[in-house]
């Protein structure tokens, strides 16, 4: 019988090495041996992703590696997440996420989504090429605390400004995150957003930092 620490280490290393099979095996073992799935997510999968973020920041990993690590993480999450009770200590929060109309790129969006998935948020993924009003309608329908939008092209990012205005008019408390290659801090400020990530990789780093903070909160 593997110890909890051994299994969590296997999950962590599997994510770092983008090896899906060991992650699948270890996730199943976590359940079979009665360990707490949320702990396995946070101290195994998310811990691995934190290292991936560090490797990205050190320019040892780039987006392809991060995407493969994310694939491995999702393999584990698919097994573990259904066994986390709704009131099992995860974060009770919701986010609406999507790529803005006119933009069919979704790598950054999907990496940020991963961060919310890991953290146990209810994620309302609108996909890509999302008409502007759909962000507003979905936020109102779900009463989500956060709306995250991405645009990979300068030619589409202007739509985000309109969405922010529409959402803030109806619900000024919603936090808006922007991301994407053309989005700079100045643009995010000009548009009235609450946070931004300038690229898929940057989104990963920011997201992983957020996961780290959540892990710290969990540990308290």
């Amino acid at each position, binding site marked *: 019988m593997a110890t909890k620490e051994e299994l969590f280490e296997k999950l962590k290393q599997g994510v770092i090495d983008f090896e899906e099979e060991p992650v699948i095996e270890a996730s199943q073992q976590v359940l079979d041996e009665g360990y707490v799935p949320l702990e396995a997510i946070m101290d195994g999968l998310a811990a691995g992703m934190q290292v991936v973020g560090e490797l990205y920041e050190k320019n040892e990993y780039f987006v392809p590696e991060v995407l493969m690590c994310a694939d491995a993480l999702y393999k584990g999450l698919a097994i573990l997440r259904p066994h986390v009770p709704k009131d099992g200590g995860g974060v009770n929060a919701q986010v609406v996420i999507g790529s803005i109309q006119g933009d069919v790129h979704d790598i950054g969006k999907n990496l940020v989504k991963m961060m919310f998935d890991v953290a146990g948020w209810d994620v309302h993924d609108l996909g890509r090429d999302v008409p502007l009003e759909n962000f507003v309608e979905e936020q109102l329908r779900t009463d989500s605390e956060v709306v995250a939008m991405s645009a990979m092209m300068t030619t589409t990012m202007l739509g985000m400004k309109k969405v922010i205005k529409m959402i803030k008019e109806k619900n000024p408390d919603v936090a808006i995150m922007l991301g994407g290659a053309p989005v700079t801090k100045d643009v995010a400020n*000009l548009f009235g957003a609450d946070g931004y990530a300038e690229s898929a990789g940057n989104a990963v780093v920011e997201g992983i930092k957020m996961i780290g903070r959540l892990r710290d909160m969990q540990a308290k």
Partner: protein
Amino acid sequence: MAELSPIERVTRFFNREPVDKMPFFTGMGMVLAPAIKKLGYNFPSIHRESAEKLAWAGIESARMFNLDAIVIPFDMCWESEALGNKISLYEESEDILYPTIPTKNWTELDQVEITQAQIDTIMDTFPMTLIPDAIKICKKEAPELPVGAWQLGPFTQCGQTIELDKVLKGVFKQKEKVNEILDSFSDLIIEIGKSLQAAGADFITLREPGVAADLLSPKTFKEVIAPRLTRILGGWKSPKVLHICGSTDPLTEMMWKCVTDSGGQAISFDIKNNIPESRKKLGNDALIVGNYDVFALPCAEETTVEMAIEGMKANIDLGVDAVWPGCDLWPDIKEENFRAMEKTAREYKVGPTAAVGRI
């Protein structure tokens, strides 16, 4: 000497011969809303309706704002559409939205196949047929203006026909297949570029925005991307420019090597590049363009004319050899800002730049 015409100015610029004043142009997407409004066109109609609309949207955009070149075409979906994907023109939208490929026919790398027959006939396939016709119209109707054509690089073009994340992961997981696909796209891009030049394009820009160092490692760039960019540029006539968006500081020397090894002329960066550092690395012989912010300066509601002028001066002070944007110009410019930017570009510094002298 009398003032040079735009075509004389741009031709001399690429030859690194002295020009009369700072060139103000681009080799990337450039269609401006005030121009198409004057023509009575709506945005979705300029892309595929006819070669005439495509040409006049480009001509009027250049003439109205005194740019030194027309650029044809405007969106990035032409080749993917010709290979069988359907595009969305957003005809119902009130906003300016460029065409996209909402769903790609190929979902896995193993499905991707570009045959020699497709390469040989792509310029006879709609919508590609419109581009050479539009270039010919521009040459006839606006002989004073050079025409810039452009092509996406093989990696980015691949991402227009299959989801980019598959290609990114494929670099590791399906190396051979990715290499094969990139070679096929390179062949296709060379043929298209040759056809655009044969139709009259005066210069051509190879744009590979999907390979910046915030996406791919410099090692992957060196091994997988650079040889193909060099081959493509080498397959075209001069003048030719290489542009990469995003983080390019770690790639600067490798990019310039692609340009010089292929007999190219200039290198173009977006706003994330440290131009003074690039100048130091490449020296005063390199024609360096790009870097000005296509949203903040000409478009942002909050940007005053004075701020746009200061931004333009800052771009010139970085040491560029021509004023050329960091990306596609966003169509919805503020006219007063863009006119002030053009005027500033021409008047701010009258002396030579690092690589180009003055008459």
